[in-house]
């Protein structure tokens, strides 16, 4: 669909909120490549997007931040083909710039003098944190279980919390407002980002083209720039 003669077409891409920057850039690129096509990003939490799709939202592409959300949509047979993983994200400890509290290991987060913030177990980053705790036997005592990872990041960035469990990509996008502390066991909880074209789409060609853009070198470069891992 590169012909501009067919008039305005709209491609609706439902993407997890954590993909805001990456997909914003890809939208621009895709629209440049496909004149007459307007990409509309619907950005929200993955599970909310899944809910919307199941209630009949007009989506062409769905990019989720976790496999569980994709699974909810898949169950209803709304996908064409299997979802494909296009990005990875690993957990990291976000601390204030300069690491004033001297946090170096995951076990440091047990220190009673620290204010720690994590995601709620119901959201992907919280699930990952929980998994890490199980793997390591560390028991965190957070002051808050946030609903999304950006909230955790903000609490650290604003100095309310000394440390927060976030994704690597979040530390990258925070551009110096927080510092990431890598730790060895983080590989035990890798988060996978799946993407799929929806069965109800009226324009499988365009949707496929967008998915391909995500997997292209351009896409990968954008994802890496934002701190995601790619295949």
């Amino acid at each position, binding site marked *: 669909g590169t012909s501009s003669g067919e008039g305005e077409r709209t491609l609706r891409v*439902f993407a997890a909120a954590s993909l*805001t920057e990456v997909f914003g850039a890809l939208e621009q690129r895709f629209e440049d490549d496909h004149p007459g096509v307007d990409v509309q990003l*619907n950005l929200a939490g993955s599970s*909310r997007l899944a809910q919307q799709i199941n*209630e009949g939202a007009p989506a062409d592409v769905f990019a989720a931040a976790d496999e569980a959300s994709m699974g909810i949509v898949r169950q209803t047979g709304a996908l064409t083909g299997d979802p494909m993983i296009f990005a990875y994200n690993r957990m990291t400890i976000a601390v204030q710039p300069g690491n004033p509290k001297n946090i170096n290991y995951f076990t440091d987060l047990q220190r009673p003098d620290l204010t720690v913030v994590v995601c709620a177990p119901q959201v992907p980053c919280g699930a990952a944190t929980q998994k890490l705790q199980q793997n390591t036997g560390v028991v965190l005592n957070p002051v808050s279980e946030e609903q999304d990872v950006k909230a955790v990041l903000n609490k650290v960035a*604003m100095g309310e919390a000394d440390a927060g469990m976030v994704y690597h990509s979040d530390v990258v996008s925070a551009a110096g407002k927080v510092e990431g502390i890598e730790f060895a066991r983080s590989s035990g909880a890798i988060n996978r980002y799946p993407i799929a074209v929806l069965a109800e789409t009226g324009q499988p060609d365009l949707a496929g083209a967008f998915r391909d853009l995500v997997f292209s070198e351009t896409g990968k470069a954008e994802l890496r720039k934002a701190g995601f891992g790619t295949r």
Partner: protein
Amino acid sequence: MARGDLACRRRAVGQAWVLWIPAGLALALVVLPVAGLLVRTDYARLPALLTSSASLNALRLSLVTAGASTVACVLLGVPLAVVLARATGRGVRVLRAVVLLPLVLPPVVGGLALLFLFGSNGFLGRLLAEVADVRITFTTAAVVLAQTFVAMPFLVVSLEGALRGAGDRYEQVAATLGARPWTVFRRVTLPLLLPALGSGAVLSFARALGEFGATITFAGSLEGVTRTLPLEVYNQAEADVDSAVALALLLIVVAVVVIAVARPKAVEGRT
């Protein structure tokens, strides 16, 4: 009100000075955080942010939808308030409680409820799709619907309070002068209700303007179509809190302008 012997060049009744203490506290509670926002704003980036197409689209959309839903609230809510305030019977008391429900529903749940009703699997959604080939979800109409849903109780409750407080003496007089109920409504109830309608409409407009949860759940977040200013703020906050704060400032400015322009006329213009 009816007699003006003491209505002009009146001296205001003195206020107990102790009232100023809690009043000042209340004011501080409201003003200080907002002032804090102002202090923390990154003014250098304001111009760029405010002129970005995303912001302008969101602003335009917010004004249009909040305006439309305020109109809808007034058109539907005023009759509802009048009926509830003046009707007698026990069913009415239950209805009164029901009308308040959207107030307590977390907006996200309200959005879900709307989705369940107007979504393509919902009762009305299917009906509309079959009969008129119309889809509501993810359209600007859905935004207006969501905002109206959450904002209407504000209008209804403020009007009902005013209606009960005022009593129906003037309406009774109008009836004895031969005015049919519709005339009474139009020429007596409504004009006397104007001050309360003013504040009620401001409340609904404000609630609609700030509405987030129900909108994102029911209408999604599509730029230019359903991404209102609060959704754009949320979107920005994902990327960068400071730009979200700057955008929120825009919202504040818009609100203050609207309130300052609309309120004096509606609320105070009853000389």
